[in-house]
């Protein structure tokens, strides 16, 4: 059985995306300006979806032609790859940015940013004392630039009573 390679996957993703676009635009209202649907909200996304279908099919064909000697995606080794320090660093970074999004309003900018910086630097191997110092410098610098200089609202959260 032939295995999937990178070109196949890109092609299949393009085709799936275009199918989603085409099925979503079916619910869009028709144009009211007289001449067909050319000026309606679905016309332009549909054109793009067809371009995407073409690109997807082309990629699949390229993938089939490259079959011999091309890089094959081996899904069974994916879990082992994720557990390596590099990919784990990416996952930790993503998780911490998600924490920033979820908890900044509750914890406040200073506490939330400090915790994220501290964990990231710890993860990236910065010595503990340096880590604590650099994290504090970064937070104070960002607070000074964005909060004080450009008067952008940065939530105080749990430090609300300190009137930062």
């Amino acid at each position: 059985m032939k295995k999937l390679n990178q070109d196949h996957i890109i092609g299949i993703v393009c085709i799936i995306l275009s199918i989603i676009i085409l099925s979503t635009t079916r619910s869009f209202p028709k144009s009211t300006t007289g001449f067909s649907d050319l000026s309606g909200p679905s016309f332009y996304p549909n054109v793009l979806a067809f371009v995407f279908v073409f690109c997807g099919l082309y990629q699949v064909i390229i993938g089939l032609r490259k079959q011999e000697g091309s890089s094959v995606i081996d899904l069974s080794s994916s879990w082992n790859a994720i557990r390596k320090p590099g990919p784990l660093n990416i996952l930790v970074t993503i998780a911490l940015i998600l924490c920033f999004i979820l908890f900044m309003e509750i914890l406040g900018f200073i506490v939330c940013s400090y915790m994220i910086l501290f964990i990231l630097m710890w993860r990236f191997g910065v010595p503990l004392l340096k880590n604590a110092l650099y994290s504090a410098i970064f937070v104070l610098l960002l607070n000074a630039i964005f909060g004080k200089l450009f008067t952008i609202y940065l939530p105080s959260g749990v430090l609300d009573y300190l009137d930062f």
Partner: protein
Amino acid sequence: MILGIFVGGIPGLTATMAVALIVPLTFHMSPIAGLAMILGVSFCAIFAGDIPATYLRIPGTPASGAAILDGYEMTRQGKGSLALALDLTCSVLGGLIGITILIFVAPILAKFALKFTNFEYFWLAVFGLSMSAVISRGTRIKGVISMTLGLIFATIGIDITTGYPRFTFSSTELMAGIGFIPAMIGLFGLSEVFKYVLLPESFRNPTITERIQISFKSVGTLLYKFKLLILRSSIIGNVIGALPGAGADIAAWVSYGMAKKVSRRSAEFGTGIEEGVIAPTSANNSALGGTWIPALVFGIPGDTVTAIVLGAMMMYGLKPGPLIFQQNAYLVNQIFSVALVSQAFLLIIGWFAIKMYTQLFKFPRNIVLVGIIIFSAVGSYALRSSLFDVSIMLFFGVLGYIMESCGIPLPPLILGLILGPMIEDNLRVGLVKSDGSFLPFITRPISLAFFILIIALFFGEPIIKAIRSFFTRRKT
């Protein structure tokens, strides 16, 4: 300018990233102050990228790729200081020539652009996108995929003609569409960070053993000797920079190739000769002036930096295009003046930058990366005080990383995101004007010229190859 020097000189961090990071800080300034900051950052970042290229054989930015060849060889021969001094002065001269061309060419082109209607603007935007898709690294089809993806993202939000919300999935935040800036910070900032954190061994910084000392003694003589090379490289850089989608990196390589082709010492290129440093470094900074020509005149970005600039200008309430030369002539003149003045500052700051870079290279990379992550998050939030924008940044960061891992170029996506509304608006207004007929899109002279150019861009090479092989077969 200092941020530009800092980011540009750190290998892997690009001028685009420096500009994307500085933009959120400029929204609360006057438009000219914001644009001055962006100009300063971009010029400095391109030059700073040449410093690690010359000393460490690692280009600080993609535009410094060509500067490695002879710059590093000169360093190995103990002439690193001369290479960097040449680099700095040629960057300043190239920048000055590029801006002078911009000042004289842009207003003339703007008068011509006033003749453009919806049909021409539609093709011009498609031409800009096509150029970016064709020129970008990777296969053409991947460039087209990236471009189309950008155009699709641009359709998210309320349809400007009918007011119908498209692909918003009942999210009120998506009604206004995808923000350019968080998307760009994600694509160029966060995705770049992902590349580095994937390799923990890259956290160990390259160290410089040699002490950097700049010598301007022999630079003057060399600049006079190679004055024509500087002029030619700067013009080539500027012309390439003005092509939508092409940027300083392509300009530097083409200029290096051209210098090698016409030089009497052609065979010595790559062994550490001055011409090999002068050509790419003059071209990459001159290309920056070139990229502003399509951006200001047509509202089409010349490269990813000007793509961000266009996004920023729209946020300031400015509409780049031919009318900006009439409605905001004062601002345009201010931009030109700032660009010229920034060259003088580049000479001074660049000089100090070279001196101080030994210390900066010793700064741990892991701390720099963490700084970029938090700056990306806060920068995206600061734009509208919206945590949703941070989600957009994260989404595009992951997307950018996946795309680059698959060999899909990022610049066409950004150009698609920026030019999407322009293409759709002009297409639909054009169709309304022509009662649903596509004919005016290919029968008007300028439209037809653009249409032929686009066809030639995608199919010119295979057609020429087919014709050549046909004639070769006939001969045999």
